[in-house]
Every structure is written in C-alpha cells, then in structure tokens.
C-alpha cells in the first residue's frame, strides 16, 4: 500500500505520469483544462493562493538566516511540488533550481524511501548531492511531505545556496579546485534529517563538524525547514477551502497550462531549424591542486559544442557531440538534476514569463550527451562540485541561439543575453583574537552586465540569469562578514565591454583594502566566467565578445600610510595604475590572474582588485550612432582612444562635453573599411593556410585535448575531418 492517492506508491505515480505524457503529449494526459475552462476566476484565485504561500514562506523564513546570500542577494527559493516531484509554483528567488527538485523526489522514490526510512507526516528530508538530483554541494534542498488524511498530496521544499560547504583544499561554497569527489566537501544523498517537524540534533552537529561555517549553515537549514513548514500549513488551509479533488486536479492543470504557454511562445517567437554554438573554458588546476593529486595537476580545457534543434512541433532537442571527456576537475555534471538546472537557467529568462515558475519546461526539452563526457560522467570518484556550471556554460550560447531566432522573427524586444557568471569571492582566515572565519561573497555573481541587443546597449550591474530577484548586496554587510576586507569601491570600468553598434554592458571593478588581516588571511576567486579561453558570449551580427573575469593583487603597498596622512586612496584600477606611475603608491608586488584566483595569502595594506562582467556587443561598431558615443564619453564609460580606434569616431571636448565630428568620422570609418579590406583574406585562402596547421598538428597540448574528444566522437569527428579534408585516419 503506497502513500499516494488510491494507495499508489511514489514509483507508481511516476510511472503513471510518464505513461500519460507519452501516450497523449499532455501533462498527465490533460487534453482539457477543465477547471480553467469551467471557472477561470476561481482557478486564478487558487493559483495565486498557492504562489502566495511560497512567496510568504520565503519572505518570512529568510529572516532566520544570518547570511546576506539568502537575505539580501536572494539566493534562496521555496516551492510547492506534486507528490511525484514536479514543481507547480515557486517563490521569487533562485528560480532555476526548481528544475532539479523533481529528480531528488524521483531518487527517493526509486531508493524505496517509503519503506526505509519511511515517509510520514512531520518528516524532514534533505539532499544536496548532484548524483541524486542535486546541483552542487552549496545548493541544499529541504523537503517536507504534505499529507491530507494520510495521503501524500504534495511536497513543500526550501532551497538555498549556503556560504561554505567544507571542501578539502580551501574554504568555499563553489570549490572550483577539487580534484576528486572526496575533496568536494559536505555532499550528502537524500536522507531523513528530522521528524515531527523537528530537526534532528545530529544534523546540526554534522553542519558544525563538516563545514567551516557551521553556525551559518545551521541557521540556513532552519530557514529552509521553517519555510517548508509554512507552505505545508498554508496548503492544508487551501485544501480545506477548495477541496481535495480540486487541489489534486488544479496542481496538474497549472503545469499543463504553463507547458502550453511555453509552446505558444516558441511558436510565436522562433523559427524552426538547427542552431549551432559552443562554449569553452579552462579548469585551472595546474600548480593549484597540490602535490597530493599529480593526476589532476594540469589545466583541463572544457569544450561543449551543441546543436539546438527547434522542431516544428515546438520541442527543443539539444545534441551534444564531441564534448570534453570526464576528468579530474570540478566540472563534471552527473545526474539530470544538475543538468536540468543549467537548462532551466536558459529557458526561464527567455520563455517562462508567468506567475508560476515551475517544471513544465522539462517536458518540452530533450538532450543527448555522450556517456563518459564531463556532462555525463561514469566515474563516481570524480568531483562534481561545480558540475552544474558546465551545463550552465551552455545557457549563454543557448540564449545567443534563441536571440538569433527572435531577431529573425522580428521579436527584437525579447533579445536578452548575459555572460553566465556564478563567480564567488571566498576569503577565509584566523582573526587576531584567534577566531577562525570564512565566507562566500556572492556580489559579483548577482549583478551581471547584459549584452548589447539589436535596439539598445547592454546594462551594467543589472541582472542575474538564474535569479530574477538578484542584488549585488550591501557593501556594509559584506564588510561585516569579511572583517579584514574593506570595500574601497565598486566602479564601472571604462572601455570594459564588447564593442558594437550597441555595446555590451559596462564591467565592474570591486576594490578591497586589507585591514586587520589577523593571524592569517587567504582569498580565492571562484570564477565561472570565460576562463582563459575567451569570453563566453560571442558578439552578434559583428559585435565583439565581452571580457573574461580578471584580478589584480597589489601586495605590500603604502596605502594605509597614505590614508593616515590624509592623502586618501585610489578608487579605481586606472587610478591605482596612475598612482603607481606617479610613485605616489608604492607596491612590492603585483600579480595578475585571468579567470579564477587560487588561494592566495593577503596582508594588511594589500589591495585586491576584481574586474568582472563587461558583456558582448551587437552589430558592427563602426555603425554606432555618434550620439551614443558622445554619451559614453560624457559618462566616462568610453575613452577617446577607443572611440577612434574601434568606433572610428573623431571626437573633441567642447566646454566639458564631448562632440563627434560627423564629417571626419564618416571619412575615418571609410578608411577603416579600407584597412579591413587590406588585412583580411578570402575565406578559402584562410582555410588553406589553417589546414596546413591542422595537418602539421601544431596545437598546444590543451587544444589537442579538445580535438581528441571531437575526433573520438563518430559524428563530431567525421565533421571535423571532412571540414579540413584530412582523411579518415586523422588523429591527434
């Protein structure tokens, strides 16, 4: 006897769902939306009650958290799910994570949780493991079953990104330096962590012993549990009001209605066909993982080419052939929960513009990924601490693909793109009084720039693809939780964007001064941007790609002395460089990093500069409207040199305002076109020269690694060999 409707078990409910979808094409076979048709107003009221329960739970429960990541930056979400796991609706916050939750319920079902450890009223379940439907250790999901008259009628779930997960090599919530599964930190499969609506004592102790920030993590857990219980209680009231039959049927109708909305958007905004894109990044392990892991002590290029098929029946199929192999880095993505999350991040901003964020889109999307690749690994000993980031790396090129389709269709207003950035600043140390501390600062991950569009420039510090309610946080809060790091400035960086007729959003510098480093201070930057191989977003229609993340660390400066003397401090990267040139700022050592920063010791007076975002452009830069160039110059977002060199604009300053000389600019742009003609060559000629290099196999080791995986894949290898006409036996 199962715990579901009519005595069905969880597995039987899953089978029923899948069978009805396969047979009819409709969620649970719902060809007619009866409740919607009979009384739309009542259905709307019902829907809002459910969504409000989730929103109210989040807004109340997040006050229990001590972490600004949950309270201010918005890295948490609360959801209502069907007994078989599909998300019906959710609060504001980390919307994409709804895509993973169903897979955790599915694992509990298939692991026989109804029998052992049992699922009953008041139980609390938790999971964060990517192999069991989780995403990565930082994303912790907490479930409370909702029973009505001894029948499981729904699940309430709270989820948030915690601030430290206890990885082996350094303090982090996003451990990008983790060579094996056993250095990932505290990753746990689904387990019962409480009964009778009470959290088990041993669960608190585990957080204390397995992570560096037990207190914060215990409070985050209380937040998730409290929010889930609030939803549980609200749902029981709603069932009493609407009746259990209406409730059961209504939840399913909401998901089917949203699926139809997505179908409708695809049909009105896109063009069927095949869209090809790719992403590259580097797992920067070399010299960073230590002598205990010689097999992981190299940089691993991670390549994910894909073909997005937009089918005439409005389904998406993503075909990944030739993706990089699984290996000893952090970017392996096991499990559908992990993979679906990255894809939800793509779909939600572009298609799911409704009151109900749910998992309806899971039924419009299929993918095929070669087994043994980093996106479908077979070795369970490999790390997966940021595997979701590998799948998320697809979302930016997927947005690019969809934007092309929107543009072709004339739906320009829906064009939206941004470099997917989950980058987190992760300092830790020991205060002078002997207290160890650490924290993950989510600011850079929560305020991305956006790319240029066909009708306007990109925005700066404006958005976060996976979190519609993101915020870069309050400087004062970050200062409070990271005592030795005093934020000197958050400033836009001139020229720091991909150029274009409509340029990308301007990048941001975060500048920190180290004061009171205590007995020890170390900082890591877990970058998830372009990483060493170029920006994630290709420019569109002739616009240039944007910037990768970068860091500059100025050690042994005299800035504390300058402040004490009342001279002040530099507040931008350019000003730092200028002060050094003028010998006003003395510096013992400067270190530059492209992409991530490995754990690096800092001392009082050191200055840490992070450069991030600065997104891709749209259209040929020499078609940019002169008035936009004048505006950028006046705002200090563009320098006169770039205006001339990239945009062909001849400018002068008149009474403190910049003016473009349109006649001279027309002439300059004509000359730029002539220079293009002089330096470019016909494609065929370029192809012949490049082919020689391919035949000589003159590639860096990292590039050979990429091509080996392409050549070992039947489909991708055939296309590569035929393109370069190098013969069927060509290998690297």
């Amino acid at each position, binding site marked *: 006897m199962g715990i579901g409707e009519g005595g069905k078990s969880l597995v039987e409910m899953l089978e029923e769902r899948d069978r009805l979808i396969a047979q009819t094409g409709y969620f649970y076979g719902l060809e007619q939306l009866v409740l919607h048709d009979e009384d739309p107003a009542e259905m*709307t009221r019902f*829907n809002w009650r459910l969504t409000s329960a989730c929103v109210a739970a989040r807004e109340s429960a997040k006050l229990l958290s001590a972490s600004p990541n949950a309270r201010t930056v918005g890295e948490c979400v609360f959801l209502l799910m069907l007994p078989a796991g599909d998300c019906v609706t959710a609060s504001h916050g980390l919307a994409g994570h709804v895509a993973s939750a169903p897979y955790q319920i599915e694992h509990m079902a298939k692991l026989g949780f109804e029998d052992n450890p049992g699922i009953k009223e008041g139980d609390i379940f938790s999971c964060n493991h990517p192999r069991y439907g989780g995403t990565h250790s930082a994303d912790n999901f907490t479930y409370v079953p909702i029973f009505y008259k001894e029948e499981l009628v729904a699940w309430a779930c709270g989820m948030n990104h915690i601030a430290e997960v206890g990885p082996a090599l350094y303090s982090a919530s996003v451990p990008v330096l983790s060579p094996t599964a056993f250095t990932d930190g505290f990753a746990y499969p689904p387990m019962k962590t409480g009964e009778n609506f009470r959290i088990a004592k041993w669960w608190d102790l585990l957080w204390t012993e397995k992570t560096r920030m037990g207190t914060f993590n215990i409070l985050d857990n209380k937040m998730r549990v409290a929010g889930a219980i609030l939803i549980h209680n609200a749902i029981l009231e709603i069932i009493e009001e609407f009746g259990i039959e209406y409730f059961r049927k209504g939840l399913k109708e909401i998901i089917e209605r949203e699926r139809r909305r997505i179908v*409708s958007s695809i*049909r*009105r905004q896109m*063009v069927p066909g*095949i869209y*090809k*894109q*790719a992403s*590259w990044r580097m797992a920067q392990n070399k010299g960073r993982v230590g002598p205990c892991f010689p097999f992981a002590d190299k940089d691993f290029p991670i390549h994910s080419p894909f073909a997005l098929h937009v089918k*005439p029946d409005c389904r998406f199929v993503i075909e990944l052939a030739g993706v990089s192999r699984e290996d000893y880095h952090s970017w392996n993505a096991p499990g559908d929960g992990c993979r679906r999350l990255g894809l939800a991040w793509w779909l939600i901003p572009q298609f799911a513009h*409704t*009151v109900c964020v749910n998992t309806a889109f899971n039924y419009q999307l299929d993918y095929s990924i070669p087994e043994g690749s980093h996106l479908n690994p077979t070795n369970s000993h490999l790390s997966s601490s940021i595997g979701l980031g590998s799948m998320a790396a697809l979302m930016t090129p997927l947005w690019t693909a969809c934007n*092309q*389709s929107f543009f072709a269709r*004339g*739906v*320009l*207003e829906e064009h939206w793109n941004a470099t997917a950035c989950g980058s987190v600043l992760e300092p830790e140390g020991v205060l002078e009084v002997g207290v160890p501390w650490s924290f993950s600062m989510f600011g850079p991950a929560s305020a991305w720039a956006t790319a240029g569009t*066909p*009708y*306007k420039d990109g925005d700066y510090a404006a958005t976060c693809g996976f979190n519609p309610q993101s915020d870069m946080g309050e400087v004062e809060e970050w200062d409070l939780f990271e005592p030795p790091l005093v934020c000197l400035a958050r400033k836009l960086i001139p020229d*720091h964007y991909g*150029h274009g007729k*409509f340029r990308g959003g301007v990048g941001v510098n975060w500048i920190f001064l180290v004061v009171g480093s205590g007995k020890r201070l170390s900082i890591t930057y877990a970058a998830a941007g372009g990483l*060493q*191989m*170029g*920006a994630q977003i*290709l*420019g569109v*229609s*002739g616009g240039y790609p944007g*910037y*990768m993340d*970068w*860091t500059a660390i100025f050690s042994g400066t005299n800035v504390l002395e300058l402040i004490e003397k009342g001279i002040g401090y530099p507040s931008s990267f350019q000003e730092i460089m200028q002060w050094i040139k003028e010998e006003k700022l003395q510096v013992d050592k400067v270190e*530059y*990093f*492209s992409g991530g920063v490995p754990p690096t010791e800092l001392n009082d007076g050191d200055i840490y500069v992070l*450069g991030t975002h600065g997104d891709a452009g749209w*259209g*040929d830069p020499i*078609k940019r409207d002169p008035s936009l160039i004048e505006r950028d110059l006046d705002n200090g977002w563009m320098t006169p040199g770039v205006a001339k060199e*990239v945009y062909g604009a001849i400018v002068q300053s008149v009474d403190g305002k910049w003016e473009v000389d349109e006649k001279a600019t027309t002439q300059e742009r004509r000359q730029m*076109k*002539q220079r*293009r003609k002089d330096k470019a060559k016909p*494609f*065929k000629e370029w192809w012949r020269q*490049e082919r020689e*290099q391919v035949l000589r196999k003159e*590639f*860096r080791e990292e*590039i050979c690694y990429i091509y080996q995986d392409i050549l070992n894949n039947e489909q991708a290898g055939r*296309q590569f060999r*035929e*393109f370069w*006409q190098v013969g069927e036996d060509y290998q690297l």
Partner: protein
Amino acid sequence: MSEVSGAEIASKKNLRLLMEGKLPWEDVKRMCRISPKEEDRFWKYIDILQEKVPWKEKILLRISDQLYIVAKDGKRMVKCECGHEFGDYRVNWKLSSLVYVRKTREEMDEIYSIEIPYPEVGLAEIREYYCPGCLAQLNVEIAPPGYPPLFEMLPDLDAFYRQWLGKPLPDEHHDWFQDKTLEEMSGWTT
C-alpha cells in the same frame, strides 16, 4: 495570468522605431509584456525590411543585422543589405566572406583595453568576418586555432512557412532543409 494583446503597441510604426533603436524604453517594456506575441509580427517585420533594402528580391528571413535569406531565380540565397550575394543559404555564408584573425596580444590590443583577461595566445583567436561587398563586419568569433567556423543558423524554412505561419512557400521541397557546407567545400584541396 491574463494575456497581453499587442495589436496597439506593436504597430508597424513602433516596430520600425524599435529596429532603429529609437522606441522609448517604456514602450519597449510594453512590447515585452505581449504574450503570446501577435500573430502578424513576422509579416510586419518583413514589410519594413523589404522597404529598407535597396534591392527587390523577396526576403524569406533575416538572419543578422546585414544578412538576409532571399528567393532569387528558384534559389534561396544569402544576400547582404549592400546587395552582395553569398550563395545557397544551406552553405555556411562564412565560406564566402573575407576573414581576418587576431592571434597575438598586439592584435587584440586594438579591441580590448585591459590586457589581463585576454585569451591566451595559442588557446583562442578572434576571427572577424567581413562582407566582400561593403566591408561590414558581419560576425566575430572566439575559437581555438583549427576550430571549424560555426554554422550558427540553418532555418527549416518550409516547416516555418507551412506549419507556423500557415503560408507555404511556392518552391516548397523536402530537399531544402539540409547543411550543404561540406559538399560546397569538396575539391578545395585541388
């Protein structure tokens, strides 16, 4: 949850302003709220584009700021706004372009102002594709050396016109929807 109608805000006049980057932001947001998008959007768009280009061939689809797929003499071909023709739309148009590749830091200096985050030399290069007719910069790629250029978009025109728009193209045929790029390149080594 009610649907937003687009008949008024998504007028041809406003669409033209949007395409020119001149539609006020508040109106752009109102257009964003149209759900689903109005049924005749594509036809309004094509009308505006057809008025804009200096040639007469029928536009089947716009695929970038400057490039269009047009019907001409029983063929479906890619054509630049300037009039330059790139050939069969089933072949990656980049094969008929001019290409310039930035490989060194000095070459990248011209377009990036801060040196630290450049792609490492030998790991990635920046490819610029120009129209041989008007020298417009049509596309920019970052790719590892030796990486075949992306064929970014191969539309299924017949499925689009028949099944989604309800107006089949006169030359509809099942052969149209296929990638002919590699076929086009056969014999390039000789």
